[in-house]
């Protein structure tokens, strides 16, 4: 989950001086900041970081769908980030088969700042299959950062939450540095990937781009996560060679740096029947998209 865009001043606050010293850019991970274009949009809420689907903890008849966007919001600044009114967010659902989608839940936003109004559309059949979409019939509207009960029985929320994703981002970049958008100067700049799909962190392009503990320039042939017991080895049969794993402390990047990071979340809890009635299968396939009215 690669973390995407955040303003440089905020990065200084959030990631701390060490990262800025080494990168000069904000950092990313997971599906956080997974393209240069998404990472550099003025409003980062088109950048989906994680998607969750789980049974309701409070009602066994309900299911919860959550979509996190706007990665790397610094501690204490969650309620200072808002949604982009030019974007449509969607949960897309296919019943039985893996394609195509036959049901969608959409979100759109009007207004600015803390007075933003969010509208949920659906669940319902999509107007179009594929990647160019229009809004279907609205279910109801609610205020930013206020959990709300809609008339159709859905519970909805759109606002800041702690990012639940846990990951050692910089250790990941130590062997897949190409995934760090800051190692690319544009969407088309191949950056370190010219060195190959693996081991491309700093062997080409941006030596020393990572914090010292993870600087592969000192040992480029030894990709590793951290936190292994002293003496742990990669393994004699490994195609990458047998070498010592790092026993540096592992870091939960999203919780342990800068006091933790936040995201903006869309959360909807609905009766499972809203996703099954009228369909022949209770087995569904789900993904999330962000669509732009400007096409970029």
């Amino acid at each position, binding site marked *: 989950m690669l973390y995407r865009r955040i303003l440089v001043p905020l990065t200084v606050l959030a990631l701390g001086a060490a990262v800025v010293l080494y990168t000069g850019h904000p950092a990313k991970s997971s599906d956080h900041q997974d393209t*240069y274009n998404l990472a550099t949009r003025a409003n980062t809420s088109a950048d989906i970081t994680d998607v969750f689907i789980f049974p309701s903890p409070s009602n066994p008849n309900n299911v919860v769908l959550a979509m996190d966007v706007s990665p790397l919001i610094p501690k204490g600044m969650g309620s200072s980030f808002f949604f982009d009114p030019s974007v449509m967010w969607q949960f897309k659902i296919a019943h039985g088969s893996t*394609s195509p989608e036959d049901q969608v839940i959409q979100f759109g936003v009007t207004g600015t700042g803390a007075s933003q109004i969010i509208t949920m559309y659906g669940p319902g059949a999509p107007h179009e299959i594929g990647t160019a979409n*229009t809004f279907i019939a609205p279910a109801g509207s609610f205020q930013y950062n206020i959990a709300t*009960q809609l008339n159709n029985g*859905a519970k909805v929320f759109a606002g800041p939450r702690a990012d639940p994703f846990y990951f050692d981002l910089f250790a990941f970049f130590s062997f897949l540095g190409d995934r760090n958008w800051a190692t690319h100067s544009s969407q088309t700049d191949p950056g370190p990937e010219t060195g190959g799909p693996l081991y491309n962190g700093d062997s080409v392009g941006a030596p020393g781009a990572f914090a010292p503990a993870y600087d592969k320039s000192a040992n480029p042939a030894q990709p590793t996560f951290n936190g292994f017991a002293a003496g742990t080895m990669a393994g004699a049969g490994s195609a990458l060679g047998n070498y010592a794993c790092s026993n540096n402390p592992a870091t939960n990047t999203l*919780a342990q740096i800068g006091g933790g990071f936040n995201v903006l979340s869309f959360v909807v809890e609905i009766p499972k029947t809203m996703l099954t009635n009228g369909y022949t299968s209770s087995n569904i396939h789900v993904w999330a998209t962000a669509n732009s009215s400007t096409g970029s």
Partner: protein
Amino acid sequence: MRNHLLAFTATGTFALLLAACSSNPGTTLNHAHIPAGLPTQQPTNPVTPSGTYTQIELLSRPAVKEVFEQFNDHKTTNAVEPYAGSPADPLQSEIKSTEDLIRPPNVGLGTDYGATLQGVLYPNEYAVNLSDTSGKAAYLGVETGGATGSKFGGRDPGDDVVDISLGALFGNTLSALGVLADDGEENACISAENVTQDPSQVKTGTFPYLASPH
């Protein structure tokens, strides 16, 4: 989660598996009870925008694009359907080609980790069984017949999705499950990340369930 995977031994099963309401709080709709206590919706909806919105971002399975796909291909994958397949969606072929660099197919052993992972992870969509009554989500739960914690599938905010993925890609998860023979290519240094979820990130029991901001 990986422990659950390691405990799973149904070889054939894994392969096979690959193949309310009203406007008033506290009422029942479609057999679902929504408790009272939340504010109700706005009295009117804003005017629905009439334009067409073009997809610029796509996400489902965590860490799949990030691990397998070259960074500059993400933009292409973000703008296609998750079931588009090659060549429209480069992710499908890159799952195999990237894995092949680390664990090339072994004719003698009959192993092809890249092809197996490609079959599991593509299309890039969560599988969810809404009829499951375990009350618990588990990433890859449908695909593994419940080996990751339940047959509901989907993804819980607490799921250790990174270690699940790393174990399958770089570790011995698939051989431990009996899906493929052990090819001896496991790399302990990158098959787990040794990170746990912080208490400040843990899901709560109250809607909206995701933890309050830091």
